[in-house]
């Protein structure tokens, strides 16, 4: 048996403290009889799914046709740090843009969503970000919700750190390259 493996497992699987909300959850469960609780859970899941779908559709709706580049952003800059700061000041949340190979054009904030406009190669691309409702996908991992062709382009939606992201590009290759918006390179 590998002692190093045991050490890694003991470290990574160590006990953690239960969230304070657990007691509230237990009390809530006591107040509601089992079958009704199950029904509430069903409705809650259905509601969450509906909220997610509305969020995706809303994000898609706010993503202009990728091929069009006629509208100008409210804030124009080629600097990731400037755009990041402007978005934070105007939208109230952070979009972790990093300097890299993607050519930034600017950003807009509309209806609570931040829209970063950029060019990947010679083609326009957009990243739309909005706050999502608190849920199980609030961690630092990309929880992919959908990947689809959209208005002649490719769109990818995911939730991460309590924010809903939709990246829309002209081609799948642009979508990959646009990852550098937040991942540098």
């Amino acid at each position, binding site marked *: 048996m590998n002692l190093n493996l045991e050490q*890694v497992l003991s470290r990574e699987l160590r006990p953690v403290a239960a969230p304070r909300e657990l007691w509230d959850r237990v009390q809530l469960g006591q107040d509601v009889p089992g079958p009704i609780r199950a029904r509430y859970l069903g409705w809650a899941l259905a509601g969450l799914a509906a909220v997610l779908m509305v969020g995706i559709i809303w994000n898609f709706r706010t993503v202009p046709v990728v091929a069009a580049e006629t509208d100008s952003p409210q804030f124009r800059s080629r600097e990731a740090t400037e755009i990041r700061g402007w978005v934070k000041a105007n939208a109230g949340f952070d979009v972790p843009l990093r300097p890299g190979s993607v050519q930034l054009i600017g950003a807009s904030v509309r209806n609570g969503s931040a829209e970063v406009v950029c060019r990947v190669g010679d083609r326009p691309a957009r990243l739309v970000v909005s706050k999502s409702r608190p849920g199980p996908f609030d*961690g630092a991992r990309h929880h992919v919700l959908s990947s689809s062709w959209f208005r002649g382009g490719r769109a990818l939606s995911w939730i991460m750190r309590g924010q809903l992201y939709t990246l829309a590009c002209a081609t799948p290759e642009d979508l990959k390259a646009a990852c550098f918006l937040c991942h540098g390179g």
Partner: protein
Amino acid sequence: MVLDGNDRALIEACQCGDANAFRTLFEAYQDRVYSIALRYSGDPASAMDIAQDTFLKLLSSIRDFRAEANFESWLYRIVVNRCLDHQRKGRRLAPFIEELFDAVSAPAESVLNRILRDEEAGDVQRIVAKLPPEQRIVVILRYTEGLSYEDIARILGCSAGTVASRLNRAHKALERKLGHLRGVSG
């Protein structure tokens, strides 16, 4: 706070419906129950569901607890069963998520894949969460709770040899998948 295994008075108070006693019992065991649930499911939201179900089950069935039995083992059995139940319920959703992930991954090339994979690299909990349930629960009870083979066997209702066998298979699988991490090599 950790209850003495022989502290029957508190359990008897719970059996008589004493809400304060149940709160004390909850506070004594909440971290252990939540830790097992979190390490097993790999997901805080699922862990909350499992932990909540565990304590509700504890509350509803504590009258069935026999004084001569070991309370910790009895509680462990409840949380283990909740974990396995949760796994069974979640099985319907998993293929859908995997299909989504595959749909994204298939046309994508190196950059997107790399970003998604990088997040998994070194993520021991994620890899443990992918072990078969019977191996995973043994790993959790061993490394999160530090239980002996005999204790684990008692909780799972199997022999210590079976526990050793499952743990051995889990170790081999984990060594393969975690071999890229510093300090873990076969």
